[in-house]
Structures are given as C-alpha cells and as structure tokens.
C-alpha cells in the first residue's frame, strides 16, 4: 500500500514538472456567465461572449490555465486597487481607458510596447484612436478591446405612429426645441414617453449632459485643470433634458433596470444607453412576448453645433510586477483576446482593429450600419486621475436637479466648486 502511494506521488510530481501549467488569474467585470462554453462565435451578451473567449483561451493555449476572478461590476475598481495595494493583482485584467492616468501614473501597469510582436499582436492593425486609448506618456499599457458609446435605441413602431419615420429611418431632433416638439408629438399620438434613460443611479444622465456640452464645443474642465461647469453651455445642456421632465414627457426616476424594462415593454420611444446592449435588444425584439418589436440603433443626434456622444474604451492590462514566464503567459492571453476582436464586436461594441472593422463579417453584424457614424463623434472628458470622483459629483448634482428640484444655477455652481476641489487635490 505504502509502495503504491509512493509511486502515485512520484508520478504526480513528474507529471507536474513535465508540463508546468502556467496559471493566469484574470480580473474582469461584465457580470457572470455560468455556461459560456468554448464556442466564441455562438454566445450572446457581454458576459457570455467574453467568458467564451476566456474559456477558449484556457482550452486552446498550451500550458496555460486561466482562473476568472469574481465578475462583479459595482466594486470592480475598488477590488483591483485593493489587490494592487496588497501586492496580489490579477495577472491579466480589464479596465477602462479613463482609468489609465490613475493606474499607469502610479506605475501599477506593465509597459508592453516591446512585447506585443513577440506574442503575435500587431499594434499597426489598431486604429489610431485605439492606440491612443492605451498609450500614456509615450508607453503602451494595454491591449484595446473596443470603443463603446451612447446610442439612441429606438422603438420604430412608436416613432412611426407619431409620424417620425422616413425611408425606414427614424427622424431624430436636431435642436432642443425639436426634441421637445418630437416628444410632444409622441405623447399626443401614443400617450407614451419619448425618452427614457437611467437618470437616477448609474451616470447615463451625466453622459447625456456631457455629450450636449461637447456638442457646444464646451467641456467640464480644461486640460490645465480648471473646472468650467457653471457655464451657459452646461445650462443649455441641462435644460434641454429637464424640459422633457417638466412637461411630463420623460421620467427621471427610472434606474438602469427599470428604464431598460420600460423600453423593452414598448412604453417609451427612445432609450439612451450604450453600444453594449445592441445584441441583447436585437434578441429581445425578436421574441414574441416582448413589447419592443422593431428595433433600431441610431447615432446620438446632434442637438447643437458639433456631433458628439460620450464614449470610452475597454482594454486589457497586466501589472508591472509580473515577470518572466508569468508575464509571457499573461501576454499570450492578451493576444488571444486581441485575435477574437470580431467576436467581441458582436455585443454591439465598435472593434479596434482596422482589419476587423473593414471585414464583411463586421459590416454584416445586426444594426451595425445604423450607427456607423458613432465612431466619428465619440468623445470623453480630458484625462484625470480623479475621473471616478468627478463623475460622482456630476451625478449627484444632476440628480439633485431632476429628482429633488434643486435649481440648475445652484447645482452647477456647487458642482464646479467640488470638481475644482478634486482637480486641486
């Protein structure tokens, strides 16, 4: 018996040394998907598509096993930060472009420009904006995965009933006055709300106001760190939206889940939300029992002078502390994800690789042609290490306007003071 055990133990050790499986821990958000499988071409929705890519990498990459850490959204950056502070960051993790100044600025992220080619990533295939998204102070700190932006998700049946469809395309407003007129037209014809979005929790309302400020060539702070929120442009942007609430043509109290439900139930003509739900809404619209039947994904309309919509970018990074074989294994995982850019684009996100964007498969994705203009109008605030806190200030003050009746002037001047505090810290 003893002999058998000994042999077994010996065999186990030799096996382990013969094929040392490199373990890669992976941190991501997007939510959980239990049965994603390894078929990267069949999954739907962000969570399942990314997990199927990860599962495929785990199965196909020789000598690499991938452990996916918990995938919660809300506390993702807090967890990543705590992990970095504790010296145990995941070997590979997803993040947004807007977080690069904070993480790369402190030396947390690995600079990988010299390693890309060795694992088969061709940075020359990335679009210029994609390369810019992962660059910081001349270095490359990640592999870009997408651009995502706010769209106007449209229920065509409601707009048709209100006479706002022409040649199979929605007629969208081109000024705040027209926005109001269209909203009234929809209300009169159908009794339904014109527009819904999460104005109450998740900062979709902030992104809406930001886009309307950019459309007036204004911004919330300058590159040299001066807050510019208590301005005419901000007032115009806010009132373009509050006029809908005041007239009872939109409901500011819906959160993310409820506003989405309102759209899927066919209770509102427009939902302002990101590119990440295009495939989900397409699938829902095809179902018999769902109120939404004819779905259209439109570019964010220009209500002022210049086209602009809020946008960001998902990217994959590795910690600066990773070395040797661990680093190589992590880079191979990044390369695998880069190779599956077309699969990720199925979510509705815009691809970052020129070869993918120009492919027929990409152009044939559902609704893709309808929001082809979005890439050209994608914008974001100037980079700041305090991005999260600044968004939170805006979210609170805007909520104060439309949920608690705080005056626009007070809210904007309070927001300016607080954002300036954050920029000065």
């Amino acid at each position: 018996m003893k002999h058998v055990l000994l042999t077994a133990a010996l065999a186990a050790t030799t096996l382990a040394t013969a094929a040392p499986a490199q373990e890669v821990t992976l941190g991501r958000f997007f939510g959980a998907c239990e049965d994603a499988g390894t078929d990267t071409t069949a999954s739907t929705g962000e969570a399942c598509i990314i997990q199927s890519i990860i599962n495929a990498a785990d199965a196909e990459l020789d000598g690499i096993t991938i452990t996916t850490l918990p995938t919660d959204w809300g506390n993702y950056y807090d967890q990543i930060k705590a992990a970095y502070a504790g010296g145990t960051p995941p070997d590979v993790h997803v993040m947004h472009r807007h977080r690069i100044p904070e993480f790369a600025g402190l030396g947390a992220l690995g600079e990988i420009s010299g390693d890309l080619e060795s694992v088969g990533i061709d940075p020359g295939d990335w679009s210029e904006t994609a390369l810019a998204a992962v660059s910081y102070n001349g270095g490359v700190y990640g592999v870009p995965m997408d651009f995502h932006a706010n769209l106007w998700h449209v229920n065509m049946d409601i707009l048709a009933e209100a006479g706002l469809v022409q040649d199979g395309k929605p007629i969208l407003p081109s000024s705040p006055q027209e926005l109001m007129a269209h909203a009234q037209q929809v209300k009169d014809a159908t009794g339904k709300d014109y527009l819904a979005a999460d104005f109450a929790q998740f900062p979709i309302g902030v992104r809406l106001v930001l886009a309307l400020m950019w459309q007036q060539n204004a911004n919330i702070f300058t590159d040299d760190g001066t807050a510019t929120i208590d301005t005419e442009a901000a007032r115009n942007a806010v009132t373009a939206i509050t006029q809908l609430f005041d007239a009872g043509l939109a409901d500011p109290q819906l959160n993310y889940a409820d506003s989405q439900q309102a759209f899927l139930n066919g209770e509102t003509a427009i939902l302002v939300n990101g590119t990440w739900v295009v495939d989900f809404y397409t699938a829902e619209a095809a179902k018999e029992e769902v109120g939404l039947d004819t779905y259209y994904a439109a570019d964010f309309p220009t209500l002022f002078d210049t086209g602009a919509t809020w946008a960001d970018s998902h990217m994959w990074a590795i910690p600066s502390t990773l070395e040797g074989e661990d680093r190589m294994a992590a880079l191979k995982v990044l390369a695998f994800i880069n190779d599956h850019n077309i699969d990720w684009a199925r979510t509705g996100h815009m691809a970052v690789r020129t070869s993918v964007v120009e492919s027929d498969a990409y152009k044939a994705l559902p609704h893709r042609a309808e929001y082809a203009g979005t890439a050209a109008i994608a914008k974001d605030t100037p980079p700041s290490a305090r991005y999260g806190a600044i968004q939170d200030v805006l979210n609170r003050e805007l909520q104060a306007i439309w949920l608690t009746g705080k005056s626009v002037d007070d809210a904007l001047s309070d927001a300016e003071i607080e954002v300036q505090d954050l920029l000065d810290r």
Partner: protein
Amino acid sequence: MAVTSRSRLSQTQAAWILLAPFLLTYGLFLVYPFFQGLWISLHDWNLLAVAFNPDAKEYVGLRNYERVMWGRNIEWSLLAAPFWQGLGLAGLALAAGLHWAGRMSRFNAVALAVASVLLIVIPGFHPGEEGRWYDRRFWPTVGNTLVFVGLAVPGVTITALALAAALNRETRAMGALRTLFFLSQVLSVTVVTLIWQIMFSPRQGLIANVTDVLGGSPINWLTDPQFAMAAIVIATIWWSLGIAMILFLAGLQDISKDIYEAAALDNARGIKAFWYVTLPNLKRTVTLVVVLQIILHFQVFGQSHLMTQGGPNDTTQVLVRYIYQTGFRDSELGRASAMAVFLFLIMGAFSVIQFIVGREKS
C-alpha cells in the same frame, strides 16, 4: 511536595498562558490595526502610491481632520439651526426641572443634559460670509447616518418587542413562527438587498403590484429622495429583527408567571398587563437591545451601497460608505482613516453608555 509545587504554575501564570492566544490575536488583528489607523489618519496617504513606493506618504498632522470636519470662516451662533438647538435647550430645561423635582435619577438627568448640550453646540456651526465647509459631504453624511440610526433602532426594537410578546407561547405553531421570523437574520446583506430591490421595484415589485391593485401609482422607492431612506430602513428592520426578538424572548421568559397572576387579580390583562408588568420587567433588555442596535446600525454600509448607491443625490449616503469611497475609490487613506476615527469615537461613546448602564444596580 516541593517538586510538584515548583512544576505547577501559579494561578496568575496559568491565567496568562490561557489568555495568551486571545491576547495575541486581539493585539495583532484589533489593537495594532487600530493604532495604525490613527497613524495613517495623520498622513497624506494614497492607497496605490504608497503600495508602490512606501515613501510616498507625507506627515500632515491633523490636517486630514481639518479638511474633513472644518471649513473656511466657520462661525458659531445660537440661531443657526433653530429647530435642533431649540430642542437642545428644551431638553436642558427638562433635565434640570425633572431632577430638581425629584422625578428623574441623577444619572438620567446628566445623560439628557449632555445630549442636549451636544444638540445646542454641534448644529450651531455654520460657514460665515465667504466661508464654506472644506468637505461639503461629510456633515450631511453624518446627518444621514443619524437619521438612519434614529429610524432603524426604534423600528427594530418596537417590531421585535411586539413579535416577541406575540410569540411567547409554548405551542408548535409559535415555535415555527419564531424560527421563520429569525430566518431573515441568517441571510447575508447581499441577499437581503437583492430581495428588497425586487420588492421595491416599481415594475416587477410586490409592493408596486399591491399599490397597482389598490389603484395607486407605484412609488419609485429607491430613486425617490423622499422614500429612499425609508426603503433601506424597512429592509434593515426586516433583516435585523431576529436577534432583538430572541433577546426579548429570553427576557420575557425570565418574568415570573406569579406576577402576571397577581396582576390578573387586579384586573390587568392583555395590553394593560403588557404595559404595567412586561415593559417594566424588560427595561434592562430594552436598554441592551437599543444600545447594541445603535452601535450596529452606525456601521450601516451594505444596504445603502447595494440598494441606492448612496443616492439619489446623497440622501442615503452613510458614513461607512463615505469612508469606503474615500479610501478605495479616491485612494485617500489618510482622510478615510480620519473619518473612521470619528466613527470610532461615536460608537465608543455608546459602548461606554452601555457599560455604565450594564453596571447600574437594578
């Protein structure tokens, strides 16, 4: 004989050896981190920067406390918050009057007076002309936390007491009901908040469906500034009434049946018996439950974090969530620690009260 006594330990030595494992863990995981927290609160300490470069911190003395709790041109006046300060003055007068009239024990009078003085002093601070609080969210957040505690503690205490009184019978059905009411307590905060988010949902929620049937329009509980705090208080009461109920049941079973029989002879039954017999006999249990709940609910985090994200417009932002945000989202560990020390002082004060009350002879 001499040999055995030498090999034996004295009582003190034995005590130290038996206490050592506890003291070691206590020191390592509670006392040391506490003093480190104090130490961090005296520094400008960025969570990530210090992790990558231990020298990135800077000693700033009490500046974190100033930046969190103070402001520019802060003044004090008696009319800054007439309601609260008036309440404090009334409390002070009441304490003095009742004590002189001999209607209130010295201890209670002193306690009421201290609370009243705090009510007069603290709300009196406000920024003067051209002045402002350095951190405009801190005091409103403290206020929200106090509101939460002020609603949740009586809510839990009264509901638990009523349930305990109703379920204090030795039948199988009552036993089952006791278990049922205790069950919510074993759930984790994530599960509890998930259940209540669904309950409060204006579209799919049970409450919305009920209001719908009754012909009302559903309330957006979690995003309406008037209802958001109420919503997390309701979820909290449902979640944490189990322990309080068990404590009350234990207290109820300590009350001798003879007293009820005697009371019944004097025609005190039902509500009357509850008011004149049960309540006075439960005084110590009530105090214990109230103080424990106060200490517990000052640390509220999960309900606000998961159900409302502190919103809308910060109406449900509570102290621990603000500490968490400052420490982890904003990486400002020094400031966060300063706030944590403030929270410690509040809870420490209530622990002292509990200690004193617990030692008082009945």
